[in-house]
């Protein structure tokens, strides 16, 4: 691996030199700038077409672009979703720094509107990444009155939802914890509110999200399946704007705008209050239960001067659920990031980021004889610096590094009152991770570009901790512990490190289409220990240690991408193959809570995932939307030393996330100027489940005899959602928008899970459980002023 990394670095240097010299003697100048709206908000992903040369570039995360061009006169056409197209002439005789401002488009039926920027950029080496702007997101049908990032991610190729009532999603055969979910650069450890019906992302202040699935830049790391990078609004510089919205179970309010010329803020809050609905039920248990959450975002951006800005983004949420008489659950998320953006010159810029994410979970039992408080959580801190350098002709370089600190509280049980429980505190799980990376996208010729990068990560598990040693040749269990190694505070217990090479290549077939290929290796040092199919609030995160080796994924992908010249249609076809190492599975009946010898209940093996993803997208016209189709497989192999540590005799078996066929159709139709109709259809093969070959009576109860793991499949999942959106008073000072939507229109009872039961009076039978079995209508009203 070291040798590979060294050759990659050499290749990178050679390419740099080649690309620099290939340009010859012609005089080149740097054309750079920022794309913003009239109100001063940056527009990441804005498209700029440069002619002559028909070259397309897109603005980066901070709305900035930079390109080196031979001296001459150019026409710049720039476009962005919902904005009027801008045109600017440039006479390039020196390095130039532009500010391209775009006006909000007054929507009219006759105009041919670009409703979305192309998801694929045929001219860059980027592949397997999808960008979604909030304007498009808000057109998707809502559930319980709110559009949601996590739900919309599930409509992209290669992504499937973990199931209704959960907050997770699976990308290309990976588990839910293999996705790095970010909120303004801070990792979120539980993105669900109220069992996943809401997520941590408040749509009112959302700017955009990008999901990276393959060909991921060396800039990103830490998880092996995908990166979901979600950005919030920064606050406009024109005037204070307010938004409010209400639905039967939730209400929200937000404001954003300038405080002074240099300072803009965003403040938003949401609350959901289904408890009053619970009171209407007859059952005492439901009547005495409660469920609610609230969350608050506060964001401030201070523009120190032309070259420096500071951004503080914070988020706090609290969820609580009470089941009458015996147990209450509370969990909170507190996130924050402080970023300093600095522009050294038109070629070099940097961002320094400090981030913190704290997730706390509390379960309180109040039953007599069993009173307790069980606390668990995770505290993540990170400091990093990222640089962008465009000073070498035809090269876009990114490099940087950082350090992350993890402190996990796996479980602290504190009994009180008459409780016969013993207090128990599991040792904290501490770890520190360093990373450094360099990535260079090189335009070797108008047709050929390569992106080469390497990331290095180094993780150490830190004491204090006790490490159990197990007897050789026996399955690990609490009873096969032979010795304990005691590590003191701050002492390194175990170190893992490695290079993560990344490479991508693009070859343009013509101006509208290209072929791309990529390879990436990624490493993950933290995982969620959960024996359920989804992320639940009580699941515990666990760092790599002596027994839990880091998860590593190698992914190869190749694709064909085409975008019509006027961006009206685009098509992509991507094929991938992934090898996954050190994957986790669980012994039957594993104990995951308050278990100091947790490793004894875990099993390790390898995984493989492969698939083909197609997507057709129509970006213009009254009817627009996309159709995506995926065929994929995800398999696991757990072959331990003993039968107890082996699954399905050590053969390959379908992983929990193996959903071979996945089809999504999203269509948006402008009926009249103020009315749009949208629909979303999704179809996915059923989740694997244990098959049962017989039933039997045991101690008077009926049981299903399961054979092996994941040898059968649940019924297929499909669902249609529709929405009718109406814009009142368009273009006026006070804008109202409303929507009526129906989730699960044709009342499909999709199986969340399957189980076998015997109900008296009927034969033993398999049953499926559907979380949502009827159409769910919702109405919401939003006001903006």
């Amino acid at each position, binding site marked *: 691996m070291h040798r590979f990394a060294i050759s990659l670095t050499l290749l990178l240097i050679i390419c740099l030199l080649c690309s620099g010299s290939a340009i010859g003697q012609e005089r080149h100048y740097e054309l750079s700038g920022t794309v913003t709206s009239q109100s001063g908000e940056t527009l990441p992903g804005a498209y700029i077409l440069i002619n002559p040369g028909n070259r397309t570039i897109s603005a980066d995360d901070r709305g900035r672009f930079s390109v080196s061009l031979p001296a001459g006169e150019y026409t710049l056409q720039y476009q962005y979703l919902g904005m009027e197209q801008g045109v600017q002439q440039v006479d390039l005789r020196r390095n130039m720094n532009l500010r391209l401002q775009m006006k909000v488009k007054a929507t009219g039926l006759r105009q041919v509107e670009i409703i979305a920027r192309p998801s694929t950029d045929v001219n860059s080496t980027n592949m397997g990444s999808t960008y979604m702007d909030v304007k498009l997101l808000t057109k998707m049908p809502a559930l319980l009155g709110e559009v949601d990032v996590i739900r919309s991610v599930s409509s992209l190729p290669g992504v499937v939802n973990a199931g209704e009532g959960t907050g997770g999603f699976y990308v290309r055969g990976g588990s839910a914890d293999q996705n790095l979910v970010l909120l303004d650069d801070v990792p979120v450890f539980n993105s669900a509110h109220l069992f996943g019906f809401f997520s941590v992302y408040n749509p009112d202040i959302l700017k955009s999200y990008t999901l990276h699935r393959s060909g991921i830049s060396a800039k990103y790391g830490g998880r092996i399946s995908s990166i979901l990078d979600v950005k919030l609004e920064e606050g406009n510089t024109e005037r204070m704007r307010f938004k409010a919205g209400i639905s039967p179970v939730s209400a929200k309010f937000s404001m954003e705008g300038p405080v002074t010329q240099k300072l803009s803020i965003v403040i938003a809050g949401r609350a959901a209050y289904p408890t009053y609905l619970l009171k209407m039920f007859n059952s005492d248990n439901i009547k005495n239960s409660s469920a609610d959450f609230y969350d608050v975002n506060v964001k401030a951006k201070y523009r120190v001067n032309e070259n420096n800005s500071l951004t503080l983004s914070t988020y706090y949420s609290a969820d609580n659920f009470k089941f009458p008489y015996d147990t209450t659950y509370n969990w909170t998320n507190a996130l924050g990031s402080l970023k300093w953006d600095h522009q050294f010159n038109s070629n070099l810029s940097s961002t320094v980021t400090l981030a913190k994410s704290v997730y706390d979970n509390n379960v309180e039992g109040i039953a007599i004889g069993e009173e307790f408080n069980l606390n668990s959580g995770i505290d993540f801190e990170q400091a990093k610096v990222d640089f962008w350098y465009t000073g070498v002709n035809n090269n876009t370089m990114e490099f940087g590094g950082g350090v992350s600190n993890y402190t996990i509280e796996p479980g602290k049980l504190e009994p009180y009152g008459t409780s*016969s429980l013993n207090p128990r505190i599991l040792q904290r799980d501490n770890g520190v991770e360093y990373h450094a990376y360099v990535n260079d996208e090189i335009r070797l010729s108008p047709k050929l570009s390569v992106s080469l990068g390497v990331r290095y990560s180094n993780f150490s598990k830190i004491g204090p901790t006790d490490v159990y040693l197990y007897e050789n040749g026996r399955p690990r269990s*609490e009873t096969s512990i032979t010795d304990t190694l005691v590590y003191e505070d701050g002492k390194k217990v175990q170190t893992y490190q490695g290079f993560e090479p990344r490479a991508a290549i693009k070859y343009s077939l013509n101006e509208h289409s290209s072929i791309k290929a990529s390879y990436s290796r990624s490493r993950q040092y933290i995982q969620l220990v959960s024996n359920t199919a989804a992320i639940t609030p009580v699941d515990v995160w666990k760092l790599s240690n002596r027994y839990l080796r880091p998860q590593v994924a190698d992914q190869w992908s190749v694709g064909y991408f085409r975008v019509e010249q006027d961006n009206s249609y685009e098509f992509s076809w991507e094929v991938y193959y992934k090898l996954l190492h050190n994957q986790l599975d669980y012994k039957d009946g594993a104990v995951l809570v308050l278990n100091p010898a947790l490793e004894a209940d875990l099993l390790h093996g390898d995984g493989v995932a492969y698939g083909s993803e197609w997507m057709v997208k129509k970006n213009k016209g009254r009817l627009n939307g996309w159709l995506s189709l995926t065929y994929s497989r995800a398999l696991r192999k757990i072959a331990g030393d003993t039968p107890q540590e082996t699954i399905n005799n050590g053969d390959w078996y379908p992983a929990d996330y193996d959903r071979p066929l996945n089809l999504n159709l999203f269509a948006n139709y402008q009926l009249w100027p103020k009315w749009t109709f949208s629909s979303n259809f999704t179809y996915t093969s059923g989740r694997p489940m244990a098959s049962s070959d017989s039933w039997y009576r045991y101690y008077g109860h009926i049981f299903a005899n399961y054979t092996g793991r994941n040898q059968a499949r649940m019924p297929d999942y499909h669902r249609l959602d529709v929405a009718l959106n109406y814009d009142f008073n368009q273009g006026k000072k006070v804008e109202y928008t409303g929507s009526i939507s129906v989730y699960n229109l044709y009342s499909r009872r999709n199986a969340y899970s399957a189980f076998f039961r015997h109900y008296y009076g009927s034969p033993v039978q398999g049953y499926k459980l559907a979380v949502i079995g009827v159409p769910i209508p919702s109405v919401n009203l939003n006001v903006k002023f």
Partner: protein
Amino acid sequence: MLKRIFPLLLLLTFGCIDPLNMGKMKQQKHLAVEGSFTNMPELNYVRLSYAQPYDYPYNEFITDAEVYVTSSEGERYNFVYGGDGGDFYANTAGSYFPEFPLDAAAQIGHTYTLHVVANGRTYQSTPATVKAPIPIDSVHFEVDEQVFSFKGYQERKKWPGYRVLVNYQDPEHEKNFLRWTFASQYEVSTQPEEYISPSSGLPAPKSCCSRCFLSEKLDRFRVVNDRLVNGKKVINQEVLFLPFERYLGVKHKLKVYQHSLTEEAYNFFRIMEQQKEAKGTVFDPPPAEVKGNMFNPNDAAEQVIGFFDASAVATREVVILRKDIDYPVAPFRWPDDCREIPGASKEIPADWLK
């Protein structure tokens, strides 16, 4: 605990449960073994049946097997078939009992193996060593409401009743695993004089009988370990729920057996309990094969279901009288001859009046 949230979530979101098309799941038969060998002879039995394909809805018990238990210490106890036992719900069909019941008692510290020869195939258990029992300090009760389904009734509903709680002292220097079983004897009082003939729909009072006695063996899979309570005095450990309906109408004698299990038995029963309770919720682990301790020594690939549990037992008996229950309980309604209740008899059990 978490599992109980889920029904609420379903109600909130209009969830539902439907039969599943079994499709093309491969079906086959397996031997299922239920076996218990303890220091209490009345608890010792082995029950043999076949696991059946889903398209065959009847139980099939094995009545002609050779069954015996051996120990590393040289003991051998033969088991003989106990007959069909009449009533379907009496849990005796397919059961084998020790040939000389009074002699067949497990010794603490001895290691036992079950042998079965059925349909020409030989099966045996892995050896299990009997651990010392932990005495029950007290048995007491608390009024509660819980979902309960009476045998033979389709409906599962919430009934008021007694939570049966035990206190015991957990021994300090070892790992302990416990399970409880129960022998229950109770008196019912019915209303034969209010009988209505189902054919004519007219009152047809019967002259007998209103006073009957029932005996039931109550098995629960619920197990606990002392991971969180090691060395402590454990109070209010819930072991059973008895509805007032039918069970506590007049008088009830309850014998609680506290089994000291091996770790393997604990794991087996724990997973059985998980599967019995699993309703496919977000909080349930996915169902999986339950590995027992029975196998075919001549064919390692043959799947044999079940567990031979060799354990020592401590007991405690309590009597509950209806008049002592401080809760308004409606009388048990059964407008018929009480002998019509499955398993009921007019015979007053020995020692009933003690």
